[in-house]
C-alpha cells in the first residue's frame, strides 16, 4: 500500500456560519490538510477550534463556503453519497439508538453497510471481545455506561473495513483504561487492515500515537508535523521543580502560571512541570524562594501549549483585544492575586483537622446490583479531594449520594456536620454543586441565573445584590452580565456555573467532571481558582477523567466495581505502587488492572 496516496486532500477550505441576528462566524479559515492512506492522522485543538466542522465537511454533512475538498478520490461537493458509501464516521456523540440492544445496533449498521452475513459473525465476535462488550449483546444501548456506549459506537463504525475512518473525539468522557483499550483496538485494526484513520482528540497522549498531527486553533491550522517533530519545538524549554516542604504542588504551579516568563505550568508526579524561555529555568519566582529547576523532557502537550500561547498572544496583540483564554491577558491577569500566590503558603495539614464529610460503610444497591460497596472515607476542611475510577466504577453514584441526589441503601453519610439521612435539605444549604454538563438555565442571562440561585439559597435582597457583584468580579463575568447563558463560550459557562455554586459561600463544593469539554488553557485558569478557594478553606470534592488533574488533589480515592481500591495522597499512592516517576495515568491503570487481576484470581 502506497503511503504517499492521499485519502483526504483539502485546500483553502473555508466555512462560515451566519447565525440569525448575529454577525458571521468563520469556523474554518483557509485550511489545508492532507491525510495519507494507511496512516493514523490526528487533529488536535482546543474546544471550539473547528474540529467538528472540519469532520462534518469531510463527510459531506455540511457544504463548505470555499475551497476544494477531495475525499477517497471524490469531490465531496459533487459526490457526497459516493464518499459516504466508502467511509465510516463516528461523530462526537455517536447516534446509538438507546432503545435498541447492542446486537441490534450493530446489526443495523452491518446491514446498512452491506456486510455479508457470513462475514458478520466472525467480525462481530472479534469487535465485541476487543471492546469487552461480549457479555452485553442483549442489553439496551441506553443502559450502558458512558465509556461502553463510546466503545459500542466505535464497534458500529467498524462493522466493515472502510476506505477511511473518521473519528471525532472518540474518547471524550472515557476513562483512561477504556481509552487505552480503544486505542489498542484502533492500532490493531490499522495494522491488520491498513485502515486510514483521521481522528480528532483533546488528549495529547493519543495524538502522540499517530503518524501525523495537525494543530487547529480558532479555525486556522497552526502547524502540522509528526509527533516527534512537534515535540522538538518545546525541546530545551521544559523544566521541573519540586515544591518546598509543606507546600502543595498546585500552589507552586499556580504561582508559576502567574509569572509572565512562564508559558505553561502543570503538576506532574509531585513536581511542577513548566515551560519557559528563561535559561536553566531560573524564573524570578523560583530564585526568590531558593528553588532550582531541573531540565525535563519535552512532551507533545508542551509543544501544543506553546503553539496555542503564541497564537493567542499574537492574535490578541494583532487585534488589540483581550481573548477569552490565555493567561495574563486583560481581565484575567488583573484578578489573579499574584501577591497572595507568591507567598507559597504551606497548606494546613489535612488530617486531624475539622472533618467536613464523613462516610462510613456506605452501600448503594440497585436491585441486586451493588453500585457502591462498603465505602468509608473522610474529607477535611479545605481539602481538594479527587474521586476517580473507570466508567461504571460507582464514582458517579458515590458523588450523587454525597450531594443528596440519591439516597444511600445503608451506611452513614454526614456532610458539613449534618446527617444526610435525616436532614438532606438542611445539608444542601452548605454545599455548592457544579454539574458535569452545563446545567444552568440557558435562556436566562448571567445576572438572572445568579439572581435565581442566590434567591433560592435564601440570601436577603441587599446581600444578594452585593454577592452577585462579588462573584461576577471574581469570575470575570461583569462584562457579560446581560448575555444569555447559552451564548457564552465554553469557558465562561464553566465560570458561571462556578459563580452560581459559590454565591452562598458554601463550605463544600462538589464538582462533577468540571473540566471535560473545556480547553487546556481554560483548565489552567479553572485550577487556579480551585487552588484559591481551597486556600480560603472551602472543601472541594471533584471527579475527573483527566488523570493529570489528579495531581492537583490533596488526596484522592480510586474506585472500581463499586469497591474502594486506594485512598491517599498522590505521592503516597505513587510510593505504594512502587512507581515513583509514573504519571497519574499509568498509576491509575496499574491500580485498576492489579485489582481486576486479583479479582479474577479469587
Amino acid at each position, binding site marked *: 500500500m502506497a503511503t504517499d496516496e492521499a485519502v483526504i486532500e483539502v485546500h483553502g477550505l473555508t466555512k462560515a456560519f451566519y447565525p440569525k441576528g448575529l454577525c458571521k462566524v468563520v469556523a474554518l479559515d483557509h485550511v489545508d490538510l492532507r491525510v495519507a492512506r494507511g496512516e493514523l492522522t490526528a487533529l488536535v485543538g482546543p474546544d471550539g477550534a473547528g474540529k467538528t466542522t472540519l469532520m462534518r465537511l469531510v463527510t459531506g454533512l455540511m457544504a463548505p463556503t470555499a475551497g476544494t475538498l477531495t475525499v477517497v478520490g471524490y469531490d465531496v461537493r459533487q459526490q457526497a453519497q459516493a464518499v459516504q458509501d466508502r467511509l465510516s464516521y463516528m461523530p462526537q456523540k455517536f447516534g446509538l439508538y438507546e432503545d435498541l440492544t447492542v446486537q441490534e445496533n450493530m446489526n443495523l449498521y452491518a446491514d446498512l453497510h452491506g456486510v455479508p452475513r457470513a462475514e458478520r459473525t466472525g467480525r462481530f465476535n472479534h469487535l465485541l471481545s476487543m471492546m469487552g462488550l461480549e457479555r452485553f449483546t442483549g442489553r439496551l444501548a441506553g443502559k450502558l455506561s458512558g465509556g461502553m456506549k463510546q466503545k459500542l459506537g466505535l464497534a458500529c463504525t467498524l462493522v466493515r473495513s472502510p476506505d477511511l475512518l473518521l473519528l471525532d473525539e472518540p474518547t471524550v468522557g472515557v476513562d483512561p483504561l477504556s481509552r487505552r483499550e480503544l486505542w489498542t483496538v484502533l492500532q490493531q485494526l490499522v495494522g491488520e487492515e491498513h485502515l486510514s484513520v483521521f481522528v480528532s482528540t483533546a488528549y495529547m497522549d493519543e495524538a502522540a500515537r499517530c503518524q501525523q498531527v495537525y494543530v487547529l486553533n480558532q479555525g486556522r491550522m497552526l502547524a502540522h508535523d509528526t509527533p516527534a517533530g512537534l515535540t522538538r519545538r518545546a525541546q530545551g524549554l521544559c523544566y521541573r521543580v519540586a515544591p518546598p516542604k509543606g507546600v502543595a504542588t498546585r500552589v507552586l504551579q499556580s504561582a508559576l502560571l502567574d509569572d509572565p516568563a512562564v508559558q505553561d505550568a502543570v503538576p506532574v508526579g509531585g513536581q511542577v512541570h513548566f515551560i519557559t524561555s528563561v535559561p536553566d529555568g531560573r524564573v524570578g519566582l523560583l530564585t526568590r524562594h531558593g528553588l532550582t529547576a531541573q531540565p525535563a523532557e519535552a512532551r507533545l502537550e508542551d509543544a501544543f501549549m506553546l503553539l496555542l500561547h503564541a497564537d493567542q498572544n499574537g492574535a490578541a496583540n494583532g487585534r488589540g483585544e483581550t481573548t477569552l483564554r490565555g493567561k495574563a491577558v486583560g481581565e484575567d491577569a488583573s484578578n489573579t492575586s499574584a501577591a497572595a500566590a507568591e507567598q507559597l503558603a504551606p497548606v494546613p495539614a489535612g488530617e486531624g483537622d475539622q472533618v467536613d464529610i464523613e462516610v462510613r460503610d456506605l452501600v448503594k444497591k440497585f436491585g441486586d446490583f451493588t453500585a457502591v460497596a462498603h465505602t468509608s472515607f473522610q474529607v477535611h476542611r479545605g481539602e481538594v479531594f479527587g474521586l476517580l475510577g473507570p466508567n461504571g466504577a460507582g464514582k458517579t453514584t458515590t458523588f450523587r449520594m454525597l450531594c443528596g441526589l440519591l439516597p444511600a441503601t445503608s451506611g452513614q453519610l454526614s456532610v458539613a456536620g449534618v446527617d444526610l439521612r435525616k436532614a438532606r435539605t438542611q445539608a444542601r444549604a452548605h454545599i455548592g*454543586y457544579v454539574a458535569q454538563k452545563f446545567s444552568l*438555565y*440557558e435562556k*436566562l442571562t448571567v445576572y438572572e441565573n445568579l439572581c435565581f440561585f442566590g434567591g433560592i*439559597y435564601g440570601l436577603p435582597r441587599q446581600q444578594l445584590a452585593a454577592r452577585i457583584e462579588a462573584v461576577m468580579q471574581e469570575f470575570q463575568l461583569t462584562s457579560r452580565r446581560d448575555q444569555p447563558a447559552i451564548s457564552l463560550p465554553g469557558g465562561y459557562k464553566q465560570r458561571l456555573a462556578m459563580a452560581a455554586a459559590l454565591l*452562598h*459561600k458554601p463550605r463544600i463544593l462538589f464538582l462533577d467532571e468540571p473540566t471535560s469539554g473545556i480547553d487546556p488553557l481554560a483548565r489552567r485558569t479553572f485550577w487556579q481558582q480551585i487552588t484559591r478557594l481551597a486556600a480560603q478553606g472551602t472543601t472541594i470534592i471533584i471527579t475527573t477523567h483527566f488523570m493529570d488533574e489528579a495531581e492537583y488533589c490533596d488526596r484522592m480515592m480510586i474506585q472500581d466495581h463499586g469497591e474502594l481500591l486506594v485512598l491517599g495522597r498522590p505521592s503516597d499512592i505513587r510510593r505504594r505502587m512502587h512507581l515513583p516517576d509514573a504519571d497519574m495515568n499509568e498509576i491509575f491503570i496499574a491500580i485498576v488492572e492489579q485489582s481486576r487481576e486479583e479479582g479474577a484470581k479469587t
Partner: protein
Amino acid sequence: MQTLTGWRLIWQHLLFLAHKELLALVKDPRMKFMLIMPPIIQGLIFGYAANYNLDEVPYALVDSSHSAASRDLIAHMDASPSFRRVATLGNVQEVSDYVDSGEIIMAVVIPEDFASKLERGETAPVQVLADGRNSSIAGIASGYVNAVVAQWNLDRAGGRSALSVETRTWYNPNQLTRWNFLPGLIGMISFVQVILLGGMSVAKEREEGTFDQLLVTPLTQTEILLGKAIPPILVGLFQSTALFLIALLWFRVPFQGSLGLLYLSLLLFAVSATGIGLSISSLARNMQQVLVYVLVFLMPMVLLSGIATPVANMPEALQIITYIDPMRFALDAIRRIYAEGASFMEIWPDFVPMLAIAAVTLPLAGWLFRRHAA
C-alpha cells in the same frame, strides 16, 4: 452567611422559582409566539367556525302538484329567511345528484295528489328529504319546514291571527352557537395550556439537565412542585383573558356576570388542571412522552366536557364519567357566569368537584414527584 429562615424563606423560594419559570418562557421567542398567537388565532377562527346556525338552508324543490295550493305553500317557503331554493326539479330522481354532490342538504317534494287530497279534506303529505350525513343540520332543517307548513295550514284554516307563538330565548336572543362556544373556549384554552405547560415543566428540566442543579439546592420538593405550578396557572389565566377580550370586544358577546367570580372559577379550574399536568410530568421520562400523555388525556376530557355537544345528550354512563372531568364543571360555571350573570350561590356546586379533583391530583402529583423525579 446570613440567610433567610422560616416563612420568609419559603416565600422567597416560591417567588424566585416562579419568576425564573416565567422568565424562561418569555425569553424564548418561539415559546412566546406559541403562548400568544394560538389563543388569538383559535379564538378568531373558532369564533367564526363554531356555527350551527342555518341562515339559508340550500334546498331543491320538486313540485309535482302544480296547483294553486302548492304554489301558495312554495310562496310561504320562499318568504322564510331560513331557506334558499337552489334548484327546481321535475322529478324525485334528479334530487339524488344534488344531494350526493353536497349542493343541497334538503329537498321538499310536493306530490301530484297534494291539491286533491286537501280538497277532499284529507291529510296531504309533503315529503322532506334531508341529507343525514350531518344529522343535526338535517334535523333542524326539517324542523323549520314543519313550522312553515304548520303556519301555512293555520293561515288556510282560520286566518292569520288565530294563534301565534311568541318565542323568547333567554341569555342568547338570536340563538347564536358562537355565544355558547366562545365562553367555553375561555375555559378550554387555559385547560390545554395549564396541562401542557405543567406537564412539560419537570420533564423539560430533566431533559436539559438543570433538574439536578435544582435538587441540590435547599428547596424542598413541595416548594419545587408549587413553584412549578404557579407559572402555568398564570399563563392560563392570561390566555383566558385574551379570549375573554376577543369574545367581548370582537364578537360582542355580552358579559352578564361578575369578573371576580369568573376569575375565581378560572383559578380553581387551573389549580385542578395543574395537578393533572404535574402528575403527567412526574411520570413521563421525556418530553415526547409528556406530549403523548397530554394528548391522550386531554382529548377525551375536552370532548366529555360538553364544549362541543351538550353533556345532557350523552348516555347515562358517560355522564357519570364526566364527573371526574374538571373541565365539565368549569365550563358550566364559566358559561353561566358569562351568559346568565349567575351568582356564587348559584354555581358553588360546580366548585365542589373542581376542588375535590384538585385535592386528589395535587397530592398525587407530589407523591409521583417524590417517587419518580427525585
